[in-house]
């Protein structure tokens, strides 16, 4: 998946204009508005329907607040795990050679292609009540974390891998020849080059984790105050026809996502500047 692309089209181009671009712009605007912007705007409007205090009390209602806290907390933990394991996996895929490496490299993307409900089912098969290895973590917070780790696995790997591939090995050799230990070389020479990629991957994985729904449905048991994540909480509110409350919690979640998206944009420009 191509992540972390710089905004295209910055080169100077002053020649012929595409005549159809006005039509294209109209179509694109209409399409995005009817499918994305107007509906998302409707959520924000709906959340403010009964005023700010109603909005605030819906978001801070004990069950909703617990779900939001749990979602953000577990997403942070999972993102930390991804930073460490994603960088390690990228490293092994780039610098190590072993039979079957190509297969492993292909499988990394499986969580992107696998439906989330199947991801949940698959994890429940191995780590649920009928586990053949006797590990039953179903309906615990650990299970939620495992589900989120599954669906966000590729992000850090796929942002770090290309940077590692293009890293100039001469710098490392120079560091080594100057007497730096391999750990020092990694910490002082390699890691600083990876920071922008790791940060971008981490932000993407956090954004994905806080909005995850399908993979947690089966394995979390959706126990309020214990394993219920924000998306499941919103789903429950829709089912019980509390649309204003659902819109309020959705708006809170959207704000967090938006902050992360803006953060990614800033990080990308930082990465581009650093070359």
């Amino acid at each position, binding site marked *: *998946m191509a992540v972390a*692309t710089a*905004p*295209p*089209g910055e080169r100077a181009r002053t*020649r*012929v204009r*595409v*005549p159809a*671009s006005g039509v*294209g*712009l109209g*179509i*694109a605007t209409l399409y995005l508005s009817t*499918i*994305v912007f*107007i*509906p998302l705007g*409707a959520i924000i409007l709906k959340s403010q329907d009964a005023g700010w205090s109603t909005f605030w009390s819906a978001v801070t209602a004990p069950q909703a607040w617990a779900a939001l806290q749990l979602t953000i907390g577990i997403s942070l933990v999972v993102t930390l795990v991804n930073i460490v*394991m994603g960088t*390690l996996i990228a*490293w*092994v*895929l780039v610098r*190590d050679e072993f039979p079957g490496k190509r297969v492993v*490299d*292909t*499988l990394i*993307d*499986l969580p*992107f*292609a*696998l*439906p*989330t*409900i*199947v991801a949940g*089912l*698959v994890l429940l*098969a*191995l780590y649920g009540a009928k586990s*053949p290895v006797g590990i039953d973590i179903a309906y615990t917070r650990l299970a939620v974390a495992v589900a989120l780790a*599954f669906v966000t696995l590729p992000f850090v790997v796929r942002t770090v891998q290309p940077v590692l591939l293009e890293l100039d090995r001469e710098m490392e050799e120079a560091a080594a020849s100057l007497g730096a230990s391999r750990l020092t070389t990694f910490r002082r020479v390699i890691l600083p080059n990876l920071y922008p990629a790791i940060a971008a991957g981490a932000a993407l994985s956090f*954004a994905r984790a*806080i*909005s995850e*729904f*399908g993979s947690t*449905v*089966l394995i979390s048991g959706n126990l309020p105050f214990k394993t219920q994540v924000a*998306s499941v909480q*919103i*789903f429950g509110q*829709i089912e019980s026809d509390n*649309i204003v409350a659902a819109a309020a919690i*959705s708006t809170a*979640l959207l704000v967090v996502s938006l902050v*992360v*998206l803006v953060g990614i*944009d800033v990080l990308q420009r930082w990465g581009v500047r650093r070359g």
Partner: protein
Amino acid sequence: MGSATTRWSMRLVALGYLALLLILPVGLVFWRTFQHGFSPFWHAISSPAATHALWLTVQIALWAVAANTVFGVIVSLLLVRGRFPGRRVLNAVIDLPLAVSPVVVGLSLILVYGRNTTVGSWFGGHGVDIIYAIPGMVLATVFVSLPLVVREVAPVLEEIGDEQEQAAWTLGAGGWQTFWRITLPSIRWALAYGVVLTLARCLGEFGAVAVVSGRVVGKTQTATLFVEERFQDFDQPAAYAMAFVLAAVAIVVLITINLFRPERHR
């Protein structure tokens, strides 16, 4: 040597993590599906509810893929070749759907196209239901998979530049002719990759469709909804059978993508 130990332990940790999180769980479901042979699988997957769910999923996915392919190419061209105010904003918001919870997507569509809304009741008056019907499910699927084609095609358009297009223009080719004969051939692999990714995402969408479909068995139940409903109903063989089909499609998609982009990490 310490170096070999480090290398081996890193390899072990990385592969162990992948095995425990990814490979063993997926493998186990494959094994469970065919634990008692092929006929229980076939029996479960050929039931009327299952075949209906599969067919509905394919139909919705095809509509959504077609819409997002056309839109994806137009937006990529606009972003890379266009000059208009708000281009930066368009570039920033195009990824928004990937950061929105599928449940929020579903809710947002209900708020605009639901039966009690202005738009929804107008359509209802003309005999077209959007929410709790197929059009709403297509909309939800389009929403969640919207940026995937753009994200693949735009970087390639940027990379190839517009010299060839300019040359075609100079030689008197029209807009369409330039697009079909110059632009499209040079983005075809990126486009194919984007289309396959979109297809995978559409076939596997769960949350957004769960909200807008009403989840009526044999009517608005897609393949992923079938998995959930069967599992909650303690019909594990059927849940596993459909999960296997969806996982098999995902793996075929992965292999296809690798064939499209063999040079990816080289």
